[in-house]
């Protein structure tokens, strides 16, 4: 290809993209930054059709990534979906827009137990979209033993050497270890946190990978026998991919989370963001979202169309206690980092 044709093609391509973005501007746009695969594409398509607003969805895989992006400023996103403890940190750091959520129609759809919780006491910043918990999943082809305690995960038996996987971030792994050891979340006591480090260090020879990506293949395909994971994701791999996996119900407690729609400070399309939040909270759309995402819904869903119940999705109805993750003080966070750095140094 000659330089000339290449240049003209480039010019044509950029002209085309200019035109494309101009038409998107005309009807308004909305950019969402959400957990990977968390927003139902069908619901997004329906929203675009009803409103003419062009929606783009990008994915993140950890709360920390999201927080860093917002702190760096002008992320360009109109809606993001952090977990509860990060909602609190973001509100306290002035990173979120007060959208008056408690007077939006969406607020009336939220189940009473999730309204105005400690992470958003006025209820003005956030509307929840899903909740669940973090625990561990076992591949039943490779592991036949009991799954009623964190002991089998943190202090595994010899045959599980190199057959366990953890997450790449300490955010949920350390609270799980604290549940097992009977230490409160966000402990500021170095002695207690040293015990957490000792536990994780003793577990390390058994760990094949600390990774938050590609988990379904690793546990479903049998690369590892146990994986730190979430309830709904386990259910989806079991149902959709027919993987022989089971979600553990450790008696020491699962680590609870709840993700919410929030609007970053300085977002350009706040009205569109509120429209989308209201749209997703409507019962029929919330049902589409619930059926797609497979995590419990904190807003009302249409029970006659919901796919999951206690019989076919026991993962979503935990029999073990669930303890919600907390927003740690800087001193406690420092200890968490210290444990993680020394674990992976």
């Amino acid at each position, binding site marked *: 290809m000659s330089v000339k044709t290449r240049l003209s093609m480039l010019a044509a391509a950029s002209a085309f993209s200019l035109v494309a973005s101009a038409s998107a501007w005309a009807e308004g746009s909305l950019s969402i930054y959400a957990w990977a695969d968390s927003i139902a594409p069908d619901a997004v398509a329906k929203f675009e059709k009803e409103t003419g607003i062009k929606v783009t969805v990008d994915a993140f895989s*950890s709360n*920390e*990534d999201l*927080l*860093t992006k917002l*702190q760096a400023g002008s992320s360009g996103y109109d809606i993001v979906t952090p977990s509860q403890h990060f909602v609190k*940190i973001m509100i*306290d*750091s002035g990173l979120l827009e007060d959208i008056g959520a408690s007077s939006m129609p969406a607020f009336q759809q939220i189940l009473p137990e999730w309204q105005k919780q400690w992470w958003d006491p006025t209820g003005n910043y956030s509307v929840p979209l899903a909740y669940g918990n973090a625990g561990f999943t076992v591949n039943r082809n490779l592991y036949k033993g009991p799954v009623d305690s964190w002991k089998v995960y943190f202090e595994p038996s010899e045959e599980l050497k*190199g057959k366990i*996987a953890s997450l*790449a*971030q*300490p*955010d949920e792994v350390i609270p799980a270890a604290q549940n097992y050891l009977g230490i409160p979340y966000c402990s500021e006591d*170095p*002695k207690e*946190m*040293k015990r957490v480090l000792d536990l994780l260090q003793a577990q*390390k020879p058994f*760990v*094949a*990978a*600390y*990774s938050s*990506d*590609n988990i379904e293949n690793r546990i479903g*395909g*049998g*690369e590892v026998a146990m994986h730190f994971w979430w309830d709904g994701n386990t259910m989806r791999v079991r149902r959709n991919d027919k993987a022989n996996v089971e979600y553990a119900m450790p008696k020491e407690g699962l680590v609870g989370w709840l993700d919410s729609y929030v609007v970053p400070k300085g977002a350009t399309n706040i009205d569109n963001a509120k429209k989308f939040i209201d749209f997703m909270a409507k019962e029929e759309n919330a049902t589409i979202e619930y059926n797609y995402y497979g995590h419990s819904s904190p807003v009302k869903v249409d029970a006659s169309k919901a796919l999951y119940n206690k019989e076919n999705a026991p993962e979503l109805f935990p029999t073990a206690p669930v303890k919600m993750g907390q927003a740690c003080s*800087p001193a406690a*966070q420092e200890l*968490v*980092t*210290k444990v*993680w*750095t*020394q674990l*992976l*140094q």
Partner: protein
Amino acid sequence: MSQRPKIPSWNVLGLLPAQLIMLLTLIIPVGIIILVSFSTRGPYGGFDYVFTTAPYKQILFNEGWSGELEFNPQYLIVVARTVILSLATTIICLALSFPVAYFISLQKTSAKMLLIYLVTLPFWVSMIVRVYSWIIILGNDGVIAKTLRALGLGENMGSLLFTDTAMLIGLVYSYIPLMILPVFASIEKLDPALVEASHDLYGSRLTTLRRVILPLCRPGMAAGAILVFVPCLGAVLEPVLLGGGKTMMMGNLIQLQFGAARNWPLGAAISIVLMCAVMIFLLWRGIQAMRKEGREEGA
């Protein structure tokens, strides 16, 4: 002595775009990183413009578990691992590239073009996809494990994936084209008459390689070594995807500070240390090259 023609002052303006790009994409960002590295960390990440040298002290000294400040080599261990892995990668790349480049240089022109094109082909694919493909190759159900099992070997062999070896394979694979190309360029420039002369003077094949070919190809090898070693120091993907995230390299350590650790100033300080290390390495190479040139001119 001839008078140098005076450059009209507007010619300097012609360089303005280049200078602007340097300023906007290099000098200002590095300046910001330096600024952050001397700032005070915010309670939940971010930073405040309050001058402190604490981030640099933190690289070496940390509060121990009992609460007092003590020397802590945890970050130095990561630095040492990074340098060792990068050096190993460079050496392996060099050893593999030389025969490949030599082989390519011996081909007909058309075949040469094709082979060089094939060497650059991986660059057309995203780095993440390329590294991911090794997960499939090295995994439990991967090509290697299956072949070994079919041959009745490696029945008890653990997975190749998530080991330091896997990490090294990934690094070598990612950066080897950057070594092959400059080495090939210098072999191409090699005058065959010199090789013939060596043979005429009863130099054995090994002697010819050692005394004639290798010294003449040194500039290409040096350029390749820099091109491989420097990006290796900042590798992030390979340790996470192929090493299983069990041990950190400097790139991961910096990422951790900006993410979960919420300590941006420390992350910036480590970045600056990494950058200085690279600059010292390059300066040292540059001075060496200059001295060598001086010697040759003097001779």
